[in-house]
């Protein structure tokens, strides 16, 4: 065990993270105040590894993932740093957030270095153009201006994601594809420029379960082949367990717990994480026993006083502590952190 941790520490020293997000905050001006949609998020993704970002709808996980390549709507006021360290010397040690979101520099990263796949492949493709046209577009923007060559690459990519009869498929429109096929085509489009980081925003939510498994398997095998890192945004813990090396649990714009995947599943600390794990159905569980659910719903993060966002719903809350102080980050081990007063040395907390 000790040698393993030592090795891991050594490896961590060797490899600087590919992406390191620090103190990312996204504020949105609403009619009734400022919404802190993402409120001080930190995480790192190492080269070739997979980080899962898990949380309920509206917790800010999609905004966080889109902020990385700067494609959020302009109403989102984003601060913090997003350090990106490409293997290419030209793109090493960049702060993506400092780039003009409409400028050339960030556009040369999008699609080429960091690609993205989306939840709804039907709406993510335009119904007006053929699949081939839309895949070739990325290739022709970043790899080659030559149309024939671009088509060759696109056909090859379609083959890689398991689409047969590529020549015919290439000239078909999105509505002629099935849901699973569309998501495969989406993946082939994202991977067509050989990115270092793939952001997958709920890639399987819109698919049925058998197709889900196929798509996840495909993503894993392509990850092995291309050696890219993946940021997997999902609300499905099952997918996290299958795909990820590390997990960050988000709640109300904050990462409340972050740990390697096994650690998180076997040794969850935050009451929210525990609740999430308990609400998962298990094979062989009693049918008559109701699944646990977390009471209440997520509050709107508008003009929140310094307090734990989970306070209202938490079974283990400490009155007078959790609802009056901002929650600091506590290290459980060197890879496991949690934001909860139950684990701080000073339960009084720190003043914000």
């Amino acid at each position, binding site marked *: 065990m000790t040698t393993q941790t030592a090795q891991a520490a050594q490896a961590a020293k060797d490899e600087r993270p590919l992406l390191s997000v620090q103190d990312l905050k996204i504020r949105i001006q609403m009619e009734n105040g400022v919404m802190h949609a993402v409120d001080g998020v930190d995480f790192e993704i190492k080269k070739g590894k997979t980080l899962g970002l898990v949380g309920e709808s509206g917790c800010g996980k999609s905004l966080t993932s889109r902020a990385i390549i700067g494609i959020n709507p302009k109403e989102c006021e984003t601060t913090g740093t997003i350090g990106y360290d490409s293997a290419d010397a030209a793109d090493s040690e960049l702060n993506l957030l400092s780039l003009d979101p409409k400028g050339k520099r960030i556009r040369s990263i999008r*699609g080429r270095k960091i690609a993205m796949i989306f939840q709804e492949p039907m*709406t993510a493709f*335009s119904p*007006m153009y053929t699949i081939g046209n839309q895949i070739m577009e990325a290739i022709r*923007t970043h790899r080659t201006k030559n149309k024939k060559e671009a088509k060759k690459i696109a056909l090859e990519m379609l083959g890689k994601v398991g689409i047969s009869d590529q020549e015919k498929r290439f000239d078909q429109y999105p509505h*002629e594809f099935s849901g699973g096929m569309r998501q495969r085509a989406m993946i082939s489009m994202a991977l067509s420029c050989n990115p270092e980081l793939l952001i997958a925003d709920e890639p399987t939510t819109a698919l049925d379960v058998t197709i889900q498994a196929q798509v996840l398997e495909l993503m894993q095998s392509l990850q092995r082949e291309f050696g890219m890192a993946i940021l997997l945004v999902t609300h499905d813990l099952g997918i996290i367990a299958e795909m990820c090396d590390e997990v960050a649990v988000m709640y109300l714009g904050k990462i409340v717990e972050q740990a390697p995947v096994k650690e998180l599943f076997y040794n969850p600390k935050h009451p929210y994480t525990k609740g999430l794990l308990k609400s998962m159905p298990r094979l062989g569980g009693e049918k008559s026993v109701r699944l646990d659910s977390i009471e209440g719903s997520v509050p709107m993060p508008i003009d929140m006083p310094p307090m734990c966002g989970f306070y209202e719903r938490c079974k283990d809350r400490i009155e007078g502590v959790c609802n009056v102080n901002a929650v600091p980050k506590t290290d459980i081990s060197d890879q496991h952190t949690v934001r909860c007063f139950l684990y701080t040395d000073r339960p009084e907390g720190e003043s914000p």
Partner: protein
Amino acid sequence: MLQYSIKRILMAIPVVMFISFIVFYIIQLPPGDYVSSYSAQMTAAGEVMTQADMDQMRANLGLDRPVYEQYAIWIKKIVFYGDFGYSFNYNKPVMDVVKQYMGLTLVVSLVTMAFQYIVAIPIGIYTAVKQYSAGDYFFSGISFLGMATPNFLLAIILMYLSYTWFGDPLLGLFSSEYVNAPWSMAKMMDLLKHLVIPVIVIGLASTADLIRVMRGQMLDELNKPNVITARSKGLSETKILFKYPTRAALNPIVSTFGWSLSSIFTGSTITAIVLNLPIQGPVMYKALLGQDMYLAGSWLLFMSLLTVLGTLISDILLAWLDPKIRTEFRGN
């Protein structure tokens, strides 16, 4: 695609026949006929027409037969001889009257239409992309005004302004020295100069309408996930704007193309009277007043043909633009 077009054209034939009958029937409906309005004119002029004279005239013109028979004769002549009947008012064949006015009517209508699309589409895109900016408010304000202002009022205002600024109210489509002159560069320029006011007056309301439609469509399209996907691929904003939202937003605009042609035709009547334009509106108006039934019927028939044709064109265009519709007929 070709098969679909042929099918649509064949389907249009019974529609046109049905319309032609309705048109003829409606023109017959008001009490009296051309002979009675003619005799009223004669009486006003001091001459008296006897009942026998009137019956004689009716028999000559074929107006004493039942409606369906008149209709059958009219249609038969159109189909076999291309003869649309005789205009009582103008005292010459309907075709001659039509020919006289059709050219300029088409010029005014087509220029107005081009004006509408050329102005409305870019402004619609601009106001959507810069939603809630000063420019958006400016153009939205103008387009609401445009929709609310009656045509004839605007025509009078523009005539007045043109007169005070340029010393010429720009009535009609030609200056007096060019009306009967052969076509030349100078006549062309004169026509273009005279077209400015009618085109603005006739086109403003529907331009304003089109701006609103285009803006709404664009706002819908700009927030679609496929725009975010395009952005995540690293395309430039300009390329994204024209390739994705604009292209998709054009579909509903194209599908209204069919009506806009005929609405320009019918909508321009009052303007044409106010501005003294030698186009079909006033001719039609006079024909209806004087119960000049073959002229009125033929114009109405042309207009309904145009509507049918416009709808056909927009359907075919839409099929060409929208891959989903295209697949549907490939399936058939």
